[in-house]
Structure formats: structure tokens, C-alpha cells
């Protein structure tokens, strides 16, 4: 772990220059000249031990968010945001891998913050993962991680989320997602969750054509537009034959 930090610091020293330049080009208008942010965050609810914040305008301070948040927002294409106030969505990543590394290093250098996590799903337990995912995540992301709806936001499907991004999102709580501390979800538990999300990208569809793995809505569509349509057509065919007989 210390080796990681040392390495990160060394890389940071080398690449912050390039990162600062990119920052000035793409991020400065919302996040401020030195990453101090341009507006106050306001609290919009939450629960005991869980604070929910929303940025009323412009961007939040990036001091102390660390490499973790920068890496997440840049590699998912969440940032730069198309319009302030929008929910960040997974979109085309604007920067090359090298540029992202430079930017992340620069933002990490703004204050002491968490490093990029290194989840190890192979150490996780699939059954524990499903259990934890149902407890903490399924209420918004749907139990098969197909995404869903909450007030004011669309929790995304997790098909494209990488292991690192899943771990990062859990720790940051992007947009209206709650953030989970290491007491709420330990790193070991996080390994299990990541393992489950990886597994659920190709779930056990032993029943045949999965029709989206979200249950009754597509099932109803199949009932009417496949089964009922076919059976009515059969009735018409049989009825026609009756006439000729």
C-alpha cells in the first residue's frame, strides 16, 4: 500500500504540469482556478449517517476528492458535464489514457484524498455479493443491475461499469447515490459486490431468451405481441377453413 502511494506521488510530480494545462482547458470554468469549486453544495435529504448533497450551481471543490473521484468521473465520461445540473451520464471519454492520468494526478495533488481503489473480485464471495447488492444497491440499480428510476435521477444499468469504477462509485456516491464508507461496506465486502456485478453482466438465463432480465413488462409484451397475436392468427386460419368446409 505504501509503495502504491509512493509511486502515485512520484508520477504525480512528473505529470501535474500536463494535468494542470488540461484542467485549465476543460475543468476550470466550473471547478475554479485552483479546484476550489464555484458554489456551495446544499443538503437534499439523506438518512442517519448518510448525507446527501447536491450542487446548486457550477462545480464543487475538488480539494481532497483525491485520485479516486477524478479517475471515476473522467473514465466513465461523466465529466466534462454537458450542462450544469444534468445527471452525469456514461458517455464518450474525451481524453486519452495518458491525459486522464495527468489530470487525475493534478487533481490528486490539490489536497490529500483517497487513491484509486484496487478491488479484487476474485477474493470476493458471489453469494455474499448478491446478498449485499440486494441490501444496498438493488433498490435503485435493480437486482440484476439493469438500472431503474428514483426521484430526480436514473440510476444507471451497470453493464459497462468496470471493477474499479464500481468500487469508486460505492465510495464517492456520484450524483444522488449515497456514499458508503469503509465501515458501511468493508473492502472485503466490496470485493464480493464487484464480483456479483461482474457475474450479473452475463446472468444465468437458464430459462431461455432473457427478454431484458427485468421481469413482467417485457413478459407482458411477449404475452400479447407474440403469444396472443400468434393464437389469434391461428383462430383466423382455422376459422377460414371452417368456411370452406
Amino acid at each position: 500500500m505504501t509503495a502504491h502511494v509512493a509511486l502515485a506521488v512520484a508520477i504525480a510530480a512528473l505529470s501535474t504540469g500536463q494535468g494542470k494545462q488540461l484542467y485549465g482547458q476543460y475543468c476550470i470554468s466550473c471547478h475554479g482556478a485552483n479546484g476550489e469549486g464555484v458554489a456551495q453544495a446544499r443538503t437534499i435529504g439523506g438518512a442517519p449517517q448518510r448525507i446527501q448533497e447536491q450542487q446548486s450551481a457550477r462545480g464543487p471543490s475538488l480539494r481532497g476528492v483525491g485520485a479516486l473521484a477524478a479517475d471515476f468521473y473522467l473514465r466513465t465520461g461523466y465529466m466534462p458535464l454537458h450542462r450544469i445540473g444534468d445527471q452525469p451520464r456514461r458517455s464518450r471519454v474525451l481524453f486519452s489514457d495518458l491525459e486522464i492520468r495527468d489530470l487525475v494526478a493534478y487533481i490528486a495533488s490539490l489536497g490529500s484524498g483517497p487513491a484509486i481503489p484496487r478491488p479484487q473480485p476474485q477474493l470476493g464471495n458471489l453469494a455474499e455479493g448478491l446478498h449485499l447488492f440486494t441490501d444496498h444497491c438493488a433498490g435503485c440499480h435493480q437486482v440484476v443491475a439493469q438500472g431503474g428510476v428514483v426521484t430526480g435521477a436514473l440510476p444507471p444499468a451497470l453493464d459497462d461499469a468496470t471493477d474499479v469504477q464500481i468500487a469508486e462509485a460505492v465510495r464517492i456516491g456520484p450524483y444522488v447515490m449515497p456514499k458508503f464508507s469503509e465501515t458501511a461496506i468493508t473492502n472485503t465486502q466490496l470485493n464480493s459486490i464487484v464480483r456479483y456485478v461482474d457475474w450479473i453482466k452475463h446472468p444465468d438465463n437458464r430459462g431461455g431468451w432473457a427478454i431484458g432480465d427485468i421481469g413482467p413488462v417485457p413478459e407482458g409484451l411477449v404475452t400479447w405481441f407474440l403469444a396472443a397475436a400468434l393464437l389469434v392468427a391461428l383462430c383466423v386460419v382455422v376459422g377460414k377453413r371452417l368456411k370452406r368446409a
Partner: protein
Amino acid sequence: MIRRAVRYLDTRTGTTPIVRKTLRYLFPDHWSFLLGEIALYAFIVLVATGIYLTFFFVDSTREVVYHGPYVPLQGQHMSEAYRSVLNISMTVRAGLLIRQTHHWAANVFIAAIILHLFRVFFTGAYRKPRGLIYVIGVTMLMLTLLEAYLGYSLVDDLLSGMGLVIGYSVGLSIPFVGANVMSWLFHGPFPGQSTLWPRMYIAHVLIFPVLIGTLLTVHVLLVAMRHHTQFRQTATETERTVRGVPAYPGQAPRSIGLMFATAGVLFLLGGLVQINPIWLWGPFHTYVSTNGAQPDWYLGWLIGALRLVPSFDLVIGKYTLVPNPFWGGVAFPLVVFGFLYLWPAIERKITGDTAFHNLVERPRDNPLRTALGIGIVTWVLLVFIAGSSDRVYVWLNVSYTSQIDIYRVLVFVIPLLAAAIAHRVCEELVAGEKVERDERAAEAEARLART
């Protein structure tokens, strides 16, 4: 072969007159009369597959730990009921095929009943002397909805648990008696006592199927006694003639063919298209939920109504007389079923027509009924579609709240519009026919004049 079988029966039971009468029964000659048969055959598939499932289902909520072959659930705590359905889906021979076929058959069964109801309603086949047949039919539809909901709930997976919560809450909202009725049914507050599952199970596998089966028999026997209705085929046809194809050799082979076709479609779906993958949903606990949970399609109209009704309760002083879920969950279906039950009487009042009708009308022949029917179908359909607005938000990115606001207006506007259009179309179709008839008459006259 048949002759020998008939003789065998006759010498022992003297049933030849009945058999002969049955074989010579004339069936009406139009495809729409086969829709009810699909429902009948789906019911047979339901009973057959259901019997197989009862061999393996356990109606107990006793908590157990799963140690079966499905890795993501190993070591998880779950009810015995849910584990038994997991086993049906994983280890029982042909279990998953039969379970999926059972579920598809339920979905198709209700769809077929509704299509059949459309035929009966829009042709006026419910009129005298078939009022009782119609009332039994509507009752069966209602029982079927409850029966299907019980089946969905019994599995005790995440979705079924969430469905049960909604049903329980809607039940609680019934004024005065709701709380008492629900705690009587559940034997206490949600999630109920261990007695709940055996209760639901016996209702699902015995009480409701026997009720539906009995009503179905009466329904079909009454149809045979009153005879089928039929469309008018010639201009001079009266209410007193029966036309059609005889049961044998005309109808029976086709009907049996339709039975195999229905069963074939249902088993193909059961084998090829995944329905309710309960192993993916996981077990239900009162503290968990999943986003995008939906009821099966036939209860979608109730979820839609719960979503559309604005947030208000009927409060008198400090006492909440009617809590909000009542409007969408109880009042709305009561209005729809109330209409279905009362419409024949209302129509008799409006038209003053109390005569017997063996000839059915084409929808265009009765624009008022057709317009009203289309209006109500559109109304329920829109509420139904509103029920899936959360998935529509995910798929089409139209915000949930704006969808609900739009639907709140549309459910009043579109049905009126649809009814007006239907009325106009009926009139135009009839007018068009009159033009054609006049043209033919004029041509005939002209030919006559030339000779």
C-alpha cells in the same frame, strides 16, 4: 371405430341420443368464436402443469439455508417456499419447463379471456337469453386475476414479496373493514404469520381452481343449452334459425387442433422464453426491494391507477376515512367490473330492447355500444400503460413525473376522442354499405331496363 365406441356406450348407458345431439351441435362460422376456446385450453394447460408443480412446492415460510447448486444463493437464508421453487427451477426434472409454461399459460389465459370478452361485448352476445353466461364469464375473469396474483405471490421471491406488500396496503385502505379483513387474512400484520402461506396455497391450488372450473363448466353448458350466437349471414335470416358447422366432423377436429396449437405455443414459450427468473431476483425479506419491480401484465392497470391518482385522502376530522390506495387499487377496478356487470341492464334501459337475440350484431351496427366500449377499453389501456412509466423513463428518457402529469390529462381526453372516432367510423362503414347496396340495386335495375 367411432360407431363401435358409440354402440359400446349406448348398450351400457343409453346415451346415444345425447351423443348424437352433441355431435350434431352446430357451431357458428366465424373465427372470433374460437377466442374463448383458447382460454379453455390455456386453463387445461394450467391445471396440468399446476398439478406437476404441486408435487415439489412447499407451502412454508420456515426459514432455511440454501445449499443447492445455484452458487449466488448458497448459504443465503430464505423461506422453504422460495427454496422449493428454486429447486423446481434447478434440480427437478423438467421443473423449469413446467414452471415457465405454467406462468406463460397464466399470462395467455387472461389475455384470451379478455379477447373473448371483447368479442362478446362488441357484438352484443351478452343480451338475452345469455345474460347469466356473461355474468359468469365476468366473474371468472375476476377470480382469475386473484388466482394469478396468488400464484405470483406464493413463490416468495423478491418481486412476489413486493407485490404482496402492495396488495396488503391496498387491502388496508378499504374503509372501516380494511384493517380487520387484512389482519384476518394475513393472521396479523404484514408479512403475516406462518399460517399465511398454507392459506394462500390452498386458495391457489384448490379453492380458486375449483371455483373457476365449476363456473367454466356451467358457462359452457349454458352456452350449449342456449346455443351459440351467430352473425347474420343472409339479409333474410331470422333469430330462429341456426347455421354453422356440426360438431362432428366439422368443428371437433379443428377445436382439438386448436387445443394442441395452444398447448404447443405455451410449451414452446415455456421452453424458449424465460419468465420470472426467480433465482435472479433472490429471496424476499421485508427490508429489501428492487427497482423496477412490476406486477404481471394483468395487474398493470391497478399499478397504473395507483400511480395516477393524485395524493389525497378522505379525512373527516382526525379520522382518515378513505386512504389514498383505495382510489386506484379498489375503486378503479370496482368501477370497471361494475360497468361490466351492469352494462347489459343499462343497455336494456337505454334501448328498451328486452327481446331475445340469437343473432349478434357487428360492432358497426351498434355505434353507441361500440363507441362506449372503445372509450372504456382506451381508458383502462392508458391507465395500464401508465403503470410501466418507470421502465419507459429508463428506455425513452421521458421523465417519470412529466409522464404521470401527461397521463393524468390523457386518460380523460383520449378515451372521449377514441369513442367519438369509433362512433364516426361505425356510421361511415354502415353508410358505405348502404351506398354499395344502392349501387348494386341501380345496376340491377339498369340491366333489367336494357333487356
